[in-house]
C-alpha cells in the first residue's frame, strides 16, 4: 500500500496543526498548475484498457464520465491496421462465448472484421505420453439438429483492438481524451488546493509525457484521476505507484507462436462449418503444443517448451520448423526428443533431414484419429517467442486505484484464458462503475472498488491455479503415478458427460 495520505490522517490532526500544514503547501501555487480532472484514467491501450473505455462509453449511465486513456503506441496506426486476407498476425487470442457476449453488449463485436475471425466447435486435447484423450465439444448438450455450439472464437488481437478503437470513436469525442504516443512520466498524490479548490491530496496525479517527435514541442500534461485504472501489463507502473506486491514465478518455459497455413483436411468436417482446435501435451519437451484454427485453413501455433528448445526451433529454417511442428502432433516422446537434438545447419542437405526423419518415423508410429492436417507453410516473420510467467497481484484495488488484466494477473497460456480473464475484469469493473454512478458513490472509493475485486479475485485465482496445476501435471515425463493419474483423470472426465459439461461451462464462464 502506498503511504497513508494526509487526507486520511486529517481527522487525527488537530485543527491548528492542520492549518499549519496546509498553509505551507501552496504558497507558490496558482490556478494554472491545478491538474485537469478526470473520472476514469486508464493507463494502457491494450484490449483490456480499450475494452474498459468502450464499455464505459457504451453505457448510458457512464457515457457522461470524463475519461482518458494513455498508451505508448500509436493508436491511429492501430485503428488503421490492415493485413492481406491470407496474412495473419501472430498475436491471436481465443474468446470464450461469455467474452463474445460482453463484446456484443458494448457494441464492439460488430466492429470486428468477421472474415478474420474463426469460431471453433470442437477441441481435441490429448496426452503425448499416454495417448489418453478428451474431446471438448457441445455435442452432448445439443441435439443433432441444432447448430453446433461454439467452444471459442479466434481473433487476432489487432483486429480486436481496432474494433474497440472504432467503437470508442463512434461514441464521439466529448469527455474523452486519448493520449496516444504518450507515456506515464510520473504518478504522485495531489495536493490540497485550499482555499480556492478541492482537496486533491488523496487523488493520483498522472504526468503524461508525449513520446516520438511530439516530445520536443508538447509539454507534459498533468491529469488527476478519480479512479486510476492500471491496464498497463505485467510491469504495471500503476501497480508500483499503489505499492501493491505481486506473487508468482517464471515457468522456465517459452511460448513459441507462428501463423501457419494447413493442408486441406483429409476428410471434410461434418457439418462443413465445424472447426477443431488441437492441443497435445508433450511432457518430455516441457509443455503442450496447440494449433488453433484461423480462416481459410490457416492456424495459429502456440507451443510451450523449454527456452533451449524454443531457441532451437526458432533457429531452424522454415521446412525444418514445419517438420518439427507436424512431428510434435504425431511422433512419440522418444522420437521427438531425438529430433529436437538434430544438427541443424543452413545447408540444404540438413534442412530436409527433419522432414525425412519425420517421414521415416511416422511410418512406424500408430497415429490417433484426432491429429490436425499437416502445416504446409509458415508466414514470414511470424515465428516469435515469449517467456511464460505466473503472477497474481496481492490485491486489485487501493484507494482510487484498480488493476485489470495482466497488471493484476498473468497466467500460463495453455487454456487460452489470459485475455478472457482481462476482459472479464473489465466487464466487472465497468458494471461496478455503473452501479456507483447510479447510486451516488464515488467511483474511486474503496467501498465502490471492493465490489469489483470481490467479484474477480477468486475466479482469476481459480483459473490461474488450474492452468498452473495442468502445466505441472503435464510436465511429469515417463511412466509414474502422476502420468497414470492424469490419463485416468482425462479418461474418466471424457466418459462422464455431466462432469465434462460442468468443466466446459466453467471454462466458458468468466
Amino acid at each position, binding site marked *: 500500500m502506498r503511504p497513508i495520505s494526509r487526507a486520511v490522517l486529517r*481527522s487525527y490532526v488537530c485543527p491548528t496543526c492542520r492549518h499549519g500544514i496546509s498553509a505551507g503547501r501552496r504558497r507558490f501555487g496558482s490556478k494554472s498548475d491545478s491538474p485537469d480532472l478526470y473520472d476514469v484514467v486508464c493507463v494502457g491501450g491494450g484490449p483490456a484498457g480499450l475494452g474498459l473505455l468502450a464499455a464505459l462509453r457504451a453505457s448510458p449511465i457512464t457515457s457522461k464520465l470524463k475519461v482518458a486513456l494513455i498508451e505508448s503506441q500509436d493508436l491511429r496506426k492501430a485503428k488503421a491496421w490492415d493485413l492481406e486476407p491470407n496474412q495473419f498476425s501472430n498475436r491471436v487470442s481465443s474468446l470464450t462465448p461469455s467474452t463474445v457476449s460482453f463484446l456484443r453488449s458494448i457494441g464492439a463485436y460488430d466492429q470486428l472484421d468477421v472474415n478474420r475471425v474463426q469460431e471453433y466447435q470442437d477441441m481435441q486435447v490429448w496426452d503425448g505420453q499416454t495417448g489418453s484423450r478428451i474431446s471438448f465439444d457441445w455435442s452432448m448438450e445439443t441435439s443433432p439438429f441444432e447448430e453446433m455450439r461454439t467452444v471459442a472464437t479466434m481473433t487476432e488481437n489487432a483486429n480486436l483492438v481496432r474494433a474497440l478503437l472504432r467503437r470508442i470513436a463512434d461514441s464521439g469525442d466529448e469527455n474523452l481524451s486519448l493520449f496516444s504516443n504518450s507515456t506515464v512520466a510520473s504518478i504522485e498524490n495531489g495536493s490540497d488546493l485550499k482555499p480556492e479548490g478541492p482537496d486533491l491530496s*488523496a487523488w493520483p496525479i498522472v504526468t503524461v509525457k508525449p513520446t516520438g517527435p511530439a516530445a520536443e514541442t508538447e509539454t507534459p500534461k498533468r491529469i488527476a484521476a478519480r479512479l486510476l485504472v492500471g491496464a498497463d501489463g505485467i510491469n504495471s507502473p500503476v501497480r508500483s505507484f499503489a505499492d501493491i506486491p505481486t506473487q508468482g514465478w517464471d515457468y522456465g518455459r517459452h511460448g513459441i507462436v507462428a501463423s501457419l497455413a494447413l493442408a486441406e483436411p483429409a476428410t471434410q468436417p461434418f457439418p462443413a462449418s465445424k472447426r477443431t482446435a488441437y492441443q497435445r501435451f508433450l511432457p518430455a519437451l516441457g509443455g503442450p503444443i496447440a494449433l488453433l484454427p484461423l480462416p481459410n485453413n490457416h492456424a495459429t501455433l502456440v507451443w510451450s517448451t523449454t527456452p533451449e528448445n524454443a531457441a532451437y526451433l526458432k533457429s531452424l529454417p522454415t521446412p525444418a520448423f514445419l517438420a518439427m511442428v507436424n512431428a510434435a502432433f504425431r511422433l512419440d516422446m522418444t522420437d521427438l526428443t531425438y529430433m529436437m537434438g538434430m544438427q541443424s545447419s543452413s545447408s540444404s542437405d540438413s534442412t530436409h533431414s527433419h522432414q525425412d526423419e519425420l517421414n521415416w518415423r511416422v511410418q512406424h508410429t500408430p497415429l490417433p484419429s484426432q491429429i490436425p492436417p499437416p502445416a504446409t507453410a509458415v508466414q514470414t516473420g511470424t515465428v516469435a517467442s515469449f517467456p511464460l510467467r505466473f503472477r497474481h497481484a496481492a490485491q486489485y484495488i487501493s484507494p482510487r486505484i484498480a488493476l485489470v488484466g495482466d497488471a493484476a494477473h498473468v497466467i500460463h497460456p495453455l487454456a487460452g484464458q489470459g485475455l478472457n480473464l482481462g476482459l472479464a475484469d473489465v466487464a466487472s469493473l465497468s458494471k461496478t462503475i455503473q452501479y456507483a454512478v*447510479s*447510486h*451516488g458513490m464515488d467511483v474511486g*472509493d474503496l*467501498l465502490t472498488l*471492493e465490489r469489483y475485486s470481490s467479484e474477480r479475485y477468486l475466479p482469476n485465482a481459480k483459473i490461474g491455479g488450474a492452468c498452473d496445476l495442468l502445466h505441472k501435471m503435464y510436465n511429469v515425463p515417463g511412466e509414474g503415478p502422476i502420468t497414470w493419474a492424469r490419463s485416468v483423470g482425462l479418461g474418466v472426465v471424457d466418459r462422464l458427460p455431466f462432469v465434462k459439461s460442468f468443466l466446459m461451462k466453467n471454462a466458458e464462464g468468466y
Partner: protein
Amino acid sequence: MASLRPRTLPLSVRALRSTLRSSRPSPNYLFSAPASTPSTQTHPARAHSTSSVSADELSHFSSLASSWWDPMGHSRILHLMNPLRHEFIASCLAEGTPSPNPTSTAATLNYLDVGCGGGIFAESLARTIPLDPTGPAPTPTLAASMTAIDPSTDLIQMAREHARMDPTVDTHLRTGRFKYLNTTLEDVLAGNAGAPTPASTPTNSSSTSTQLTPPQYDIVTLFEVLEHIDPKTSTPLSFLTNCLRALKPGGWLIGSTISRTLPSFILNQVIAEAPWPIGVVPRGTHEWSKFVNPDEVKGWLQEGLMRAADTGVSRGGGAIAEGMRWKCVGAIYIPGIGWKMVPGSEDWGNYFWAVRKEI
C-alpha cells in the same frame, strides 16, 4: 453504526470521547448548538428546547467522528446500506414527484437530510446533482440541491472536510447547491437555520406553525434517526410533524429505522453490539427501547399529516390521514453478501418507510 474490525477505538478517539463526556453540554445548549463556520454567527443558547436529539446520543456519535468515513470502520454497515437508500428513494419517486411534469428527468428536487451525521447519504446524493443545473439528472433521484443538517458540530465539521475531497461535491458546496448546516430541524423550519434568533418563549410544535416559512423541500430524508430521538425533550410524533412541515405538497418524507421486536433485539442488541469479533456495531449505538415499529411510524405520520396541514384545525385532516400514501419495506444485512431489501421483513429489524404529502 457498525464495524467489521475490533471495536477498540484508537487512543485519540477515546481521549476525544472522554473530553466530550466530561464537558457534556446540556440538552438545551446542544439543541441550538451554534454552527462553527465563520459565515455563521454564534448566539447564546436559547432558553427553550425543541430539540429532538439527546445529549448522550450526540456525544456518542461525535466520539465516532474520526472513523466515520473509514470504509472498514464502525460505519461500514451504514456505508454498505447507502445504495439501498438511493434505490428506495427512486422507487418512491417512480410513484410520483412534486414537480409539475412527472415524467421530466430534469434535476429539480430539493432535498433536506435531517440528522446527516458524517454525511454518508448527503454527500452521495450531492454527487448526483448535475454540475450544469439545466442538464438532465444522472440518476432517478433527480436532485437539484441538498441541505444536510446535524446537531453535532464535530460531525458537520468532519462532513465538510470530507466533502472537499471530491471536486464535484466541493463545487456544489461552493455554489450552495449542497449545504451542511450545524443546526436543528426546528431552526430550519423557523427559517433561521444556522442564523441567530432572539430568544423566544417556549413553543410547542403545533403552535409554531404560524411563524413558519413556507415549506421548501421536495424530499426530506431521515435515515437511521428516529431510533435516536430523546424521549425527554421530544417525541417522534412532534419530530415527524416538523419533518412533514418542511415538505412541499406532493413531496416525500423518507426514512429508515429499526423495529422493536424480539428478532431485532437479538440481532441489534445481542449480536450486533456483542464484543468483537461477533459484533459489528459499537456498544451503546442503539437503545432497544427507542426502536420504533412500522405501525407506530405509520400512526405518527397520520397524526403528523393532520397536524402539518397548516390550517391548525385537526378536523379537516381526517381525509388526509386516510388517503395517506405509505410505503414500507424491510432490509436485511447478510454477512458476505450485503444489504438486501426483503419485503415483509419489516419486523425483523431494519426497514425503510416513506410517506407522501398529498398535493
